C-alpha cells in the first residue's frame, strides 16, 4: 500500500497538536501581561548591548547604569552631581588646583563604605587602575577622550585620588561618569577578552546581572547590601527585553508585556495617549535636529547671505506644530535650554520668505526660466541626505524641499541607512544633511565649529572656518571657572547665530513611557539615560 509521500495523516496530527497546544495555552493565559510590580519591571529595549563594559560600548548605557556607578552622574536637569564621590571638585572647594605649568590637579574624595558587589571595598586604587588601563597599550576602549590628557593618578589614601592633567580640561567633572574598572578583577588580564566581566560586570550599583539570554533579554536582580541602605533598590528585578522593531515594542507596551519603553518615537505618542496604565514622560533633551550645510562640497553655502536666506525660508514653527505634534520646540542654536551654557541672547530668525528672496537676489542668485535660481548659468540646487526609515525625518526633509522650492532653491532628498550615513558625513561627501547631534552634557562646541576640527579631526562637517570663533572656543575649553567659561560660550553662541553655519530646526524632546503607578521617575536629558535614579523607583 503506497502512502502519501508526506505522511498526510501524520502532518495533520502534528498541526492539530500545535493548534490545540496553542489554544489550550490561550485558555490558560495568565501572565504574558502581568502588571508592573516591585517584584519585576520589564523594559522594552531597542537593541541588545554589545558588551556591558561601559568603556568598551558605543551604545546607550542604560543597563550598565543600573550596575556600574560613576564618581558623578547627571541629574534630570543635566547638573553634574556626586555619586561615588562625596562632592564634585571645583576651584572654589579646593578640589581643583590650576598649576603654573598649564596643567591641573583634581582631587576626588570617595564616599566611604562603598563596596563592589563581591564585598571588596571600592578605593582610589580602582580609579588609578582605570586610568592606567584606558591609557595602556593592551586595552581597546571605545574612547580615550580626556584620559589621554591625564599624566598620572596619585592615591594618598584609600579614599582620595588626585588626578594630574597635562593641560586644563574643562569637562573633568564628568571624567569618571561611566564608572571605574575593578582592579582586583581585571588587573593583569586582557580586558577586551575578559568575557566574565564584559558580560556581567562587577559594579557598586543597585543591580547585578542575573541572566543574559542572547537575542531575548537581560535580567537584573537587586544586590543584597547596596551602599545606600537595604531599603534600596525598591524593585527586586529589572528585565530588559530586546525588541528591535519599533512597532513591535509599542505593541508589547500596549498589550502589557513590557512596562517601560525609553525614547518613544514622537509619531507613536498619540497611540499611547488613551492607555490609562501608561504615562508618557517628557524631558527636554540636549540634542538638536538641524541641517548641516557643507561649504566644501557645495560652495554657494560659503556665502552667509545664502545661508541666512535658507533659514529665513523655513517655517520651523510650522514643522514643530504639525509634523512634531507640538512635542518639540524650535531650536535657535546648538546649545539647548537644558544646558547651563545656554543663552537666548543670540540672533533668531523668523519665517520670512520675502527677505529670503531679497537676500538671494543680492547674492546674485536670480530666478531662472524653470523657477530655480541660478548664477552664472549654474542652478542653486543641492542634495539633502537623511536617515531612511525614520518617518519624522523623511517628513521634515520633504517639507524643507517644498519650502525652499518656494524661494527658488532646488532640493533633492536622498535617504540612506544609519551606518551608511555615518560613513558619508565622515568623508564629507554630501551637500546638506538633516540629522541631530546628541551633545555631550559638557557644552564643548569646539569639535563642531572650530576651523581645524573638520573630519577626521572632529565633527565640523559644515567645513565652516572662522578664526575668531575658533580662538574663542579653544579659550572656553581651557577655562575651568564656570562664570568665565559661561561668558565665553555665550559669545561663541552669538557669533554662531550671526553666521548661520548650519540651520537649527528643533530641540529634541525625550519621550519615555512608564507605568502610571511608577513613583520617583525623573527622566534624564543626556546619554546617562533614565535609569540614573533607578534605585528610587517604586511601584505604588
Amino acid at each position, binding site marked *: 500500500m*503506497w502512502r*502519501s*509521500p508526506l505522511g*498526510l495523516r501524520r*502532518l*495533520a496530527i502534528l*498541526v492539530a497538536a*500545535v*493548534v490545540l*497546544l*496553542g489554544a*489550550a*495555552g*490561550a485558555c490558560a*493565559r495568565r*501572565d*504574558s501581561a502581568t502588571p508592573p510590580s516591585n517584584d519585576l519591571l520589564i523594559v522594552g529595549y531597542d*537593541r541588545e548591548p*554589545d*558588551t556591558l563594559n561601559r568603556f568598551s560600548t*558605543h551604545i546607550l548605557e542604560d543597563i550598565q547604569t543600573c550596575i556600574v556607578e560613576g564618581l558623578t552622574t547627571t541629574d534630570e536637569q543635566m547638573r553634574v552631581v556626586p555619586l561615588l564621590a562625596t562632592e564634585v571638585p571645583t576651584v572654589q572647594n579646593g578640589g581643583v588646583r590650576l598649576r603654573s605649568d598649564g596643567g591641573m590637579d583634581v582631587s576626588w574624595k570617595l564616599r566611604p563604605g562603598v563596596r563592589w558587589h563581591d564585598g571588596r571595598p571600592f578605593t582610589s586604587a580602582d580609579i588609578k587602575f582605570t586610568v592606567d588601563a584606558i591609557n595602556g597599550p593592551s586595552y*581597546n576602549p*571605545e*574612547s*580615550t*577622550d*580626556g584620559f*589621554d590628557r591625564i599624566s598620572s593618578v596619585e592615591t594618598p589614601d584609600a579614599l582620595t585620588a588626585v588626578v594630574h592633567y597635562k593641560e586644563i580640561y574643562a569637562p573633568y567633572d564628568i571624567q569618571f561618569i561611566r564608572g571605574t574598572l575593578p582592579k582586583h578583577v581585571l588587573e593583569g588580564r586582557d580586558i*577586551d*577578552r575578559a568575557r566574565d566581566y*564584559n558580560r556581567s560586570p562587577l559594579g557598586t550599583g543597585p543591580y547585578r546581572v542575573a541572566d543574559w*539570554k*542572547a*537575542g*531575548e*533579554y537581560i535580567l537584573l536582580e537587586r544586590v543584597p547590601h547596596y551602599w545606600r541602605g537595604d531599603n534600596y533598590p525598591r524593585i527586586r*528585578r529589572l*528585565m530588559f527585553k530586546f*525588541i*528591535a*522593531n519599533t*512597532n*513591535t515594542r509599542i*505593541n*508589547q507596551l500596549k*498589550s502589557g*508585556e513590557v512596562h517601560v519603553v525609553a525614547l518613544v518615537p514622537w509619531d507613536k505618542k498619540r497611540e499611547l495617549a488613551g492607555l490609562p496604565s501608561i504615562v508618557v514622560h517628557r524631558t527636554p533633551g540636549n540634542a538638536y535636529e538641524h541641517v548641516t550645510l557643507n561649504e566644501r562640497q557645495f560652495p554657494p553655502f560659503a556665502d552667509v547671505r545664502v545661508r541666512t536666506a535658507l533659514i529665513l525660508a523655513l517655517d520651523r514653527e510650522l514643522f514643530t506644530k504639525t509634523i512634531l505634534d507640538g512635542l518639540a520646540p524650535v531650536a535657535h542654536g546648538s546649545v539647548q535650554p537644558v544646558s547651563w551654557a545656554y543663552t537666548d541672547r543670540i540672533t533668531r530668525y523668523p519665517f520670512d520668505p520675502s527677505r529670503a528672496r531679497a537676500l538671494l537676489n543680492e547674492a546674485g542668485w536670480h530666478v531662472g526660466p524653470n523657477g530655480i535660481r541660478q548664477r552664472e548659468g549654474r542652478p542653486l540646487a543641492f542634495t539633502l541626505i537623511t536617515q531612511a526609515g525614520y518617518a519624522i525625518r523623511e517628513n521634515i526633509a520633504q517639507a524643507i524641499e517644498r519650502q525652499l522650492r518656494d524661494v527658488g532653491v532646488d532640493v533633492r532628498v536622498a535617504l540612506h*541607512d544609519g*551606518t*551608511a550615513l*555615518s*560613513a*558619508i*558625513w565622515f568623508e564629507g561627501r554630501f551637500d546638506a544633511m538633516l540629522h541631530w*547631534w*546628541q551633545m*555631550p552634557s559638557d557644552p*564643548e562646541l569646539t*569639535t563642531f565649529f572650530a576651523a581645524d576640527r573638520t573630519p577626521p579631526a*572632529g565633527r565640523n562637517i559644515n567645513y565652516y572656518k572662522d578664526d575668531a570663533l575658533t580662538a574663542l572656543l579653544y579659550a572656553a575649553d581651557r577655562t575651568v571657572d564656570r562664570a568665565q567659561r559661561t561668558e565665553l560660550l555665550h559669545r561663541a553662541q552669538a557669533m554662531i547665530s550671526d553666521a548661520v553655519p548650519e540651520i537649527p530646526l528643533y530641540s529634541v524632546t525625550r519621550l519615555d513611557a512608564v507605568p502610571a503607578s511608577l513613583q520617583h521617575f525623573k527622566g534624564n536629558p543626556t546619554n546617562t539615560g533614565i535609569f540614573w535614579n533607578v534605585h528610587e523607583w517604586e511601584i505604588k
Partner: protein
Amino acid sequence: MLGFLARRLLQAVPLLLLISGLVFLLIHAAPGGPLAIYLSNPNVRPEDIERLRRALGLDRPLWQQYWSWLVAFAHGDWGYSFSDGRPVAIRIVERIPATLELVGVSIVTALALTVPTGVLAAVRRGGWFDRITTTGAIAGISLPAFWFGLVLQIVFAIGLHWLPSSGRTTPGWAGGSGGLADHAQHLLLPVTVLAVVQAAGWSRYLRGSMIETLAQPFVLAARARGIPGRDVILRHALRHAIGPVLAVVMVDAALLASGAVVTESVFAWPGLGSLFTEALARRDYSVLMALLMLTSTAIVLFNIVADAAHALVDPRVVEP
C-alpha cells in the same frame, strides 16, 4: 547514485568559493563599516577610530582580509564578532534552536495547508473552492510579512489579549518561562505568518503540477482500469505531481533555515534572522560572512538533496 552525489558535491566547492568572494566584496562595498556607529559619539575621536581600526585588522588591504578570513573559515575558525567580541560560532549556535523551532513548525504547517488545498483546487478546477483558494493565495503571496505580523499582533495580543504579541517565551515569572504551552502560544502568530505566506505559493505550484498530471494518459489509463477516483488522485497523480513542488519547498526551507529575517524581526524572535538584521545594521562583517555562507551552503546542499530525491524517484535524472 554515489557517483552522482560525489560529482555534485565536488561541483559545489568552487561554487561556494565564488560565492564567498562575491559576498565578501558586496558587504565591504556597502558604505560604512563596523566602526561607523562610533562616529556619532562626539567623545570618540579620530585617534580612537584609527586605533580600533588597527585592532580589528580593518586597516589591511581587502584581499588580505579576505584571504585570512578564508583560511580561518576553512579551518573552522569563524572569527570574532566585530560588535561584541564573542566568537562568531557561539553567536550563531545560540540562535539556531529558535530558528529551527520556528521554521520547522512553519514548514510542517505550510505543507499541511499546501497538499489538501493544491490537490482539491486542481481536482475541482474552476469550482468555488478553487476560486476561493486562488484569491486567498494571491492575498497570501502579496501580504508583506511585516504588515501581516503587526496586524496579527494588534488583533490577537492587543485587542483580544489571547496571545503574546512577540518573543519566544514569557520570561521572568517565578524564575522561568512558562513551559510547552507558553512556547506554543508564542509560536502561533509568527508560524501563521510564515505558513500562510509559504503555503500560498506552494499550493499554487502543486495545483498547477496536479492539473498537468491529471491530463496525462497514465491517469486516464488508471481510471480505465477501474481504480477508484480517490486512489487515482492520491496514489498516482499526487505522487507524480509533488516532485517539482518538493524541489521548491527544499530551496525555500534552506532560505528559511538561515532565518526568516522579516518575521523574526517583527516578532522579536531570537533566531538567526534577527541576528542577521542586527549584524547588517552594525556591519558586523564576520557575523554577516558566516551567516551568508551558512545560507549559501544550505541552499547548495538542499538542492543536491532535492536532486538526489528526484533521482531516486526518476532514475533518468542520474544520467548525464
